[in-house]
């Protein structure tokens, strides 16, 4: 038998946790191979290693005949593999339309446009997505998202298709359509191998070959029938549970009948609930009544309005129409009492990962106002009841998903609520843990009379509910006991009944029968053309995403203008109208003449006189007074007598720059006053030397002439850097980074591609800022415009590159924004010549300034604006800035790993 992937002694560790423990396995080629097993046993790790998106730690992995330890081999094999990561539509860009997403993937594989168009048309036809080519991926239902993900995986005719839990969280109809589609495609591409990890045992029944995994090891392998025989069970699920070494409680889950109490107030009553978002109706006139103690299952595909309904039941959302009654009382959003009666568990893990298991429980016990004397006892009780005693002091992140879910349930019941609202609590949890979870739910319902409202995609779970309802596109299609619905639909199973109901609503299988196979011989393209296409794929996608986020686009374009306007007017070293006051104790014509000297120049604005030191001190203390002049009694007289009278000038030194300037003005003024007096009285002593001060480059000594060019430097450092700072890390957070890892795109193509749109925007901003500087702030432009604009390109490449560099190192958008702001603002504001000339900085200051692009660009803006610089004066700066571009790109590329650790 041919093998598509061979593993020999493969081990993988995350910190101290062992994910894979010396796995040796051969996966047959040309078949549907499945990996089954509980959560956290290493299925995803194994798939990622086979696909080459995770870095191999130990052992030998051969995929499609290539050794995945070698980068060259990975490069050759990447175009032949399609990898669909776990999580519904995780590799799709939500703001891009169906067609745009597929275009993006086609480009990543370097396909020319006509080939891409043909393939996309075919795939859309085959998957039934053809009617919605322009719908944004984020607005697709779960099933459609999954189909789109599959299309994107199939766009390059892979030899190996790797699917990691592709149908988790998808409704039964979409699930069935999905597998039919895979079968059809395999029918036409017999050579294609498929490896799937799944938590649905009934799906695994239809695979050709299975490997059952537990605790990082393969415990059984072979055809489904062989596995059933090994485990000894009628279904694969039973067999699997028996194969597990530690399983002792594998009795089936039974639901004891519920005692009906007639006439009791129903626990939940929903009347005509409707919720509209704009003109989209998410929930349309939904009503139900749930008696106390019932387990009510709420089924439907993702995006059908289930979560919105639940949010209205918990009071998180106010309905547009209709009302909810809990135990007969109307629910209001701000009602604290009703919240005490509800326990809620949201779809994703929403507890605090920074608190330990016990701290989480205690915090919730406190917030739900459990009295201090019983609090510790209740926490202990819950720890025992939910089997979390051993994990009490661990952080939730280190727990397997099943235990996390148990913790969430424990938190939801800590205050003994009468109603539990659970949103897909078992999604992604393995069968064993799910059974365990359900036993707890049934106990809560039957023994404690808790009403449970639960959503699920598992049909065997739906069968355990007292009643269920099926929702589609905001409407309830079916409601009743599971057996009742099966009978009404005339189906054999609940799954069949649901598919029937959905098909009634949506029409029969809308997917075309045409096989999605591209027959035309692919046109050969040079490696460089392909590289450019891949680079363009990222540029184009980043541009579209930016265009679809108008708020971000607005900030990106308006931010620089607003900054230049406020700071251009606001930062001025033209010290005008310094508040000044006099205490004239002399009141002679001479003293008046001296005061007039001060009042005459515009730099001083005279305020009301002061009478005492204390008054002056007070006013200066409040910052009302910058300069105070005190002329003593007898000033005029002693002046006449030829004595040298003494006057005092007080200056507020709290703002040193202003104080220095004020002193400078006062000195200059007194000097010229003395000179004039001397000339008038004929006294000698005035020196004949004329000291002439000439202001170069800025004759009028206007702040704006120097500040505006420098501000352009500052603005083009900060805004572009922060724009690009989220670009890479956002992909890491949303999971679309998987596309970068699993396709042939190179690191530099990825980085440069994502950088281009920001460079274009930033360079556009440069022109706007330069124009504002020239015509609004009236700064003369005397140098070479081509030099300035040319170097501006280098500068914005460097600054956006800086953002990407930070983005490549950080793991969250928050820390990327934070780090970019902190690292760029401080040196650029202080050390790049914006305010203090670089030549008079200390050596450290100068070095810090020159370590950033701003310190090299500031002389260029100032030089070309007011000093008449051309290329020759700024050639060095241009070279250094080009160096920054390259260094940032190189370091970012090094920090960005093509494989996950």
């Amino acid at each position, binding site marked *: 038998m041919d093998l598509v992937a061979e593993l020999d002694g493969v081990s993988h560790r995350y910190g101290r946790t062992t994910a894979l423990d010396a796995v040796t396995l051969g996966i047959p080629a040309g078949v549907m191979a499945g990996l089954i097993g509980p959560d956290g046993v290493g299925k995803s790790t194994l798939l990622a290693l086979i696909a080459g998106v995770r870095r191999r730690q130990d052992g030998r992995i051969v995929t499609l005949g290539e050794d995945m330890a070698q980068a060259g081999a990975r490069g050759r094999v990447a175009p032949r593999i399609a990898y669909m990561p776990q999580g519904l539509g995780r590799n799709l860009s939500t703001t891009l339309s169906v067609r745009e997403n597929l275009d993006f993937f086609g480009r990543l594989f370097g396909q020319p446009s006509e080939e891409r168009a043909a393939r996309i048309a075919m795939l859309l036809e085959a998957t039934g997505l053809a009617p919605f080519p322009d719908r944004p991926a984020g607005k697709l239902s779960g099933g459609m998202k999954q189909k789109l993900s599959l299309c994107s995986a199939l766009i390059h005719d892979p030899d190996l298709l790797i699917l990691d839990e592709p149908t988790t969280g998808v409704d039964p109809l979409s699930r069935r359509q999905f597998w039919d589609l895979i079968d059809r495609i395999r029918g036409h591409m017999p050579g294609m191998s498929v490896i799937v990890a799944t938590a649905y045992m009934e799906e695994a029944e239809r695979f050709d070959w299975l490997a059952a995994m537990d605790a990082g090891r393969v415990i059984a392998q072979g055809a489904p029938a062989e596995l059933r025989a090994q485990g000894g069970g009628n279904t694969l699920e039973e067999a699997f549970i028996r194969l597990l070494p530690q399983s002792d409680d594998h009795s089936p889950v039974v639901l004891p009948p519920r005692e009906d109490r007639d006439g009791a107030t129903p626990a939940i009553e929903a009347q005509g609930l409707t919720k509209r978002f704009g003109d989209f109706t998410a929930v349309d006139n939904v009503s139900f009544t749930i008696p106390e103690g019932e387990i009510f299952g709420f089924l439907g595909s993702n995006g059908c309005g289930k979560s919105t309904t639940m949010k209205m039941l918990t009071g998180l959302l106010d309905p547009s129409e209709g009302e909810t009654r809990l135990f007969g009382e109307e629910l209001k959003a701000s009602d*604290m009492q009703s919240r005490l009666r509800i326990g*809620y568990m949201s779809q994703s893990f*929403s*507890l*605090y990962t920074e608190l330990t298991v016990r701290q989480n429980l205690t915090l919730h016990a406190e917030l739900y106002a459990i009295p201090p004397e019983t609090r510790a006892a209740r926490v202990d009780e819950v720890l025992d009841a939910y089997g979390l005693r051993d994990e009490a002091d661990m952080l939730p992140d280190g727990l397997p998903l099943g235990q996390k879910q148990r913790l969430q349930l424990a938190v939801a019941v800590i205050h003994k609520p009468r109603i539990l609202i659970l949103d897909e609590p078992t999604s992604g949890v393995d069968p064993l843990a799910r059974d365990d979870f359900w036993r707890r739910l049934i106990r809560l319902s039957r023994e404690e009379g808790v009403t449970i409202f639960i959503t699920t995609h598992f049909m065997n779970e739906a069968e355990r509910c007292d009643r269920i309802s099926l929702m589609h596109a905001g409407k309830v299609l079916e409601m009743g006991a599971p057996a009742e619905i099966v009978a009404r639909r005339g189906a054999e199973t609940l799954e069949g009944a649901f598919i029937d109901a959905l098909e009634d609503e949506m029409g029969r299988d809308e997917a075309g029968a045409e096989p999605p196979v591209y027959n035309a011989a692919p046109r050969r393209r040079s490696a460089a053309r392909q590289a450019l296409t891949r680079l363009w794929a990222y540029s184009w996608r980043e541009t579209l995403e930016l265009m679809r*986020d108008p708020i971000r686009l607005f900030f990106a374009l308006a*931010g620089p203008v*607003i*900054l230049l306007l406020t700071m251009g*007017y*606001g*930062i*001025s*070293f033209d010290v*005008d109208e310094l*508040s000044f006051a006099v205490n004239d104790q002399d009141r002679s014509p001479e003293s008046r003449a001296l005061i007039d000297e001060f009042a005459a120049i515009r730099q001083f604005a005279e305020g009301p006189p002061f009478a005492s030191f204390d008054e002056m*001190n007070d006013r*200066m*203390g*409040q*910052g009302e007074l910058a300069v105070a002049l005190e002329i003593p009694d007898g000033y005029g007289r002693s002046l006449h007598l030829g004595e040298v009278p*003494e*006057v*005092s*000038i007080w200056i*507020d030194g709290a703002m*040193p*720059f202003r104080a220095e300037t004020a*002193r*400078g003005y*006062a000195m200059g003024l*007194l000097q010229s006053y003395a000179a004039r007096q*001397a000339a008038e009285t004929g006294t000698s*002593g005035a*020196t*004949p*030397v*004329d000291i*002439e001060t*000439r202001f*170069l480059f800025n004759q009028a*000594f206007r702040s704006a002439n*120097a500040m505006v060019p420098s501000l352009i430097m500052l603005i083009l450092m900060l805004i572009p850097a922060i724009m690009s*700072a989220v670009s890479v890390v956002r992909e890491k*957070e949303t999971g679309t980074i998987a596309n970068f890892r699993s396709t042939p795109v190179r690191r530099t193509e990825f980085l440069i591609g994502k950088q281009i749109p920001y460079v274009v925007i930033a360079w556009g901003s440069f022109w706007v800022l330069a124009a504002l500087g020239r015509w609004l702030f009236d700064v003369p432009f005397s140098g070479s415009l081509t030099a300035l604009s040319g170097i501006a390109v280098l500068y914005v490449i460097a600054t956006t590159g800086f953002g990407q560099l930070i983005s490549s190192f950080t793991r969250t958008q928050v*820390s990327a924004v934070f780090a*970019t*702001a*902190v690292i760029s*603002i*401080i040196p650029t504001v*202080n*050390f790049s*010549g914006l*305010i203090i*000339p670089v*030549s008079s900085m*200390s050596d450290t*200051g100068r070095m*810090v300034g020159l370590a950033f692009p701003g310190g090299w660009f500031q002389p260029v803006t100032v030089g070309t604006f007011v000093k008449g610089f051309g290329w020759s004066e700024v050639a060095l700066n241009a070279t250094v800035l080009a160096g920054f571009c390259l260094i940032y790109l190189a370091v970012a590329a090094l920090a960005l790993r093509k494989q996950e650790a």
Partner: protein
Amino acid sequence: MQAVINTLRLTLKELRAIRRDTVMIVLMIYVFTVAVYLVTNAASTEVKDLSVAVVDEDHSQLSRRLTDAIRGPLFLDPVPLSPEAAAAEQTVGNYVLVLAIPPEFERDLRSGGSATLQILVDATAVAQAGNGASFLQQVLAQEISDYADPGGDSAALVDVVYRTRFNPNFTASWFTAVMQLMNNVTILTLILSGSSMIREREHGTIEHVLVMPIRPVEIVLSKILATGAVILLGSVLSLTIVVEGIMGVPVQGALWLYVLGAALYVVAVASMGLMMASFTSNMGQFGLLVIPVIIVMFMLSGGITPLESMPAWLRVGMQFVSPSPHFVAFSQTVLYRGGGFGLVVGHLAAMAVMAVLALSIVLARFRRVLAN
């Protein structure tokens, strides 16, 4: 009462979240130590160490004397250059001031003719050039009159005694240190508080909190308290240990009053961070919004250039929308002028009002924003 206890419990939880964020903590330590130290020591608007070149074409005793008179701390030691070199070097920004002493300067002066000295100023260095030039002019005038009339009484007509209140030597490092601290506080608080909200929204944990018997105001206040406490502690430690202890910059005034004002400032800025977060839906948007706000709040606070130099509309506008001008005025009064509570109550009130306004907007938008 329950509300207060809940808020404190949530605050504790927020503090734990901050403690586990290593990147944040490293950056915070950096800004409160290295950045404050670096900026305070190396960057200030006071005239200090100004670079000067001298083009001496006279080569006389007097010209050497004049050259020697240009000394620290105001000026770096002057560098003798040829006229061409001086012009070129000044153009590329290596010297802010160039003193040109013409040939035969001393002889002309002795012969009673008129002699002219020229100071060439690189006027693109606006922050220091003007004051630097006038100081250089005075130094030269003094030196020449000493030369003309050795030992003689300076011919001053009026003896002016300059006295400086509050900061006798115009030492800018006091000021720069406090302004840099404020800058750091602004950056950290805005981003920390705003991102704590956006992060919860992006991860869906806020939903979980909202179904609990907790009011939005408790959530919001707990975020402000946690962010505020950490940053306030950082800035006070930085002020006392780094600024006062290591750099030896004396801090006058009542520390408790400064802490009170800083606390109000942090609360106001944190509220504004949350408010901005409520108007944006992802970190990309928030980052682009927060950067201009940080820059404007810092640069136009009156801490870098005097408020008096701004156009009236901008000055009044800043005082209305930003707490930073109030905090700068407050810090100057408390830390330099040793002013008491009475002198700063107006600024404190202004910051408090801004905090309350921003908080009301956050709370009004809270549910609506989270619903989407």
